[in-house]
């Protein structure tokens, strides 16, 4: 492999990491900070993508589509928080698992009912289409650079919100002891609804942004969900920085693994077997990474005991 290709693949890995962070950002808030296991997060991601596709089909405007994604996901988030999640904060994690699993079923099939069983069309705006040339002769899709930017901005914004503002402190305090923070005069229910809606909105925006270069279809949220959980857990629950680093690690591992492992095995195996073994191993790689990280740091890279 030429150095330039290697650099390009590293870039791809980082890019895919930032994209992962974008997808995990909302979950970082809801799961990482509020401490709520929300399996339906992937559904909110899907809601965003579908709302964007629907609006873009009608208006042709990507900006409007993004706004629609944000609004639809935030609204869906607020509704499920008030109707369901709110009753579950003081319950066992397992009740949250069951309830949000039920929400997945409702959202997935509800979306299919509304939009049919076939994938929808959502494309990147013309202005952002096509590649740009980076130094070193690397051709890189402009839109992906935009995604990187969006991911970085959201990472910074979240970090500031959680670590630097009083609202962030109150959310974390609420996660530690809801009853107590309420007894000190904080309307934790309203705050949580807001934050949940914000997390949902982030998921929705990610769904729309990423949906434009992937397929917008029912069930698109579930693989993302697992990946997002992996990212957050590797980084350490509750740490935005951790989630970001975790996302980059997973992105790099996944990309470079799928490129390098088959080459590695080709060194001493016949080509067909090498590609196949390499590919098998690379699909396991992020799980091996996660298990490895947790074995050495049982609370993730930046997590606290």
């Amino acid at each position, binding site marked *: 492999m030429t150095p330039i290709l290697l650099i390009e693949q590293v870039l791809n890995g980082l890019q895919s990491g930032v994209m992962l962070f974008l997808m995990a950002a909302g979950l970082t808030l809801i799961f990482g900070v509020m401490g709520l296991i929300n399996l339906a997060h992937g559904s909110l991601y899907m809601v965003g993508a579908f709302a964007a596709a629907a609006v873009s089909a009608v208006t042709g405007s990507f900006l409007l589509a993004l706004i629609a994604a944000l609004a639809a996901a935030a609204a869906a988030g607020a509704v499920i928080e008030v109707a369901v999640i709110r009753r579950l904060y003081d319950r066992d994690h397992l009740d949250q698992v069951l309830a949000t699993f039920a929400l997945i079923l409702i959202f997935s099939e509800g979306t299919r009912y509304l939009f049919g069983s076939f994938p929808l069309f959502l494309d990147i705006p013309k202005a952002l289409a096509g590649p740009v040339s980076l130094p070193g002769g690397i051709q890189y899709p402009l839109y992906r650079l935009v995604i990187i930017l969006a991911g970085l901005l959201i990472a910074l914004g979240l970090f500031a919100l959680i670590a630097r503002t009083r609202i962030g*402190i109150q959310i974390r305090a609420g996660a530690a002891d809801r009853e107590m923070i309420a007894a000190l005069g904080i309307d934790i229910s309203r705050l949580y609804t807001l934050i949940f809606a914000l997390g949902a909105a982030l998921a929705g925006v990610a769904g729309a942004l990423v949906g434009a270069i992937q397929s917008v279809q029912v069930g698109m949220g579930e693989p993302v969900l697992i990946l997002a959980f992996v990212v957050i857990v590797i980084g350490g629950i*509750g740490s935005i920085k951790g989630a970001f680093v975790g996302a980059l690690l997973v992105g790099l591992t996944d990309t470079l693994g799928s490129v390098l492992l088959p080459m590695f095995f080709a060194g001493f195996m016949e080509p067909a077997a090498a590609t196949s073994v390499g590919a098998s191993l690379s699909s396991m790689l992020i799980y091996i990474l996660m298990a490895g990280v947790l074995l050495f740091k049982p609370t993730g890279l930046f997590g606290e005991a």
Partner: protein
Amino acid sequence: MNLLELRGINAAYGPSQALFGVDLALKQGEVCALMGRNGMGKSTTIKVICRMLRHSGGEVRFDGREISALPSHRAARLGIGLVPEGRRCFAPLTVHENLIAAARPGPWDFAAVCELFPRLGERRGQQAALLSGGEQQMLAIGRALMTNPTLLLLDEATEGLAPVVRQEIWAAVAKLKRDSGMALIVVDKSLAELRGIADHAVILERGASVWSGSMTALDRQVADQFLGV
């Protein structure tokens, strides 16, 4: 007018009733000692006042209005501050974050709390979970003060504190009462210390208020009968 008034409070945890008609009244700037043996309902009464626990009978009036229907954050915003039993600091947050999480403007701010408890200033960036027991207790008190309440509920707030610190706290309480007219309900085990600070006392026995009167009226005989000392 009474700042706080409990009349005939009944309360239960699920099926098991813990309070059977508790009465208590308190004026602005007064300190009331809430006493009784272990398990008699002191903490339950405190929880009812700050609306952490919904009572099933009787009424709670604060500042002239019936607050039974309010959620606990609204009661807190009316000016009820709580130092709960067992500290309940926000374990993953730092000392500073614990203090400012729910702070409301007023004379008690971070600097003032650090003056009362210098230890908290020294440990400002440390996670609450890693504080010593006594430091956590200081933190819980500081946290409640930072909400600048007009009524402060201290449920075993000096548990686990060194004698010097306890003395400082009682001194601070006396000052609070004197300077800012804060009212307090204090649950504490040391009768001697309470005598120095409380105006009157209410004694609970099996969830009912069985004795109330001024601190001076609480003589040996009463103490012996209800508190076992």
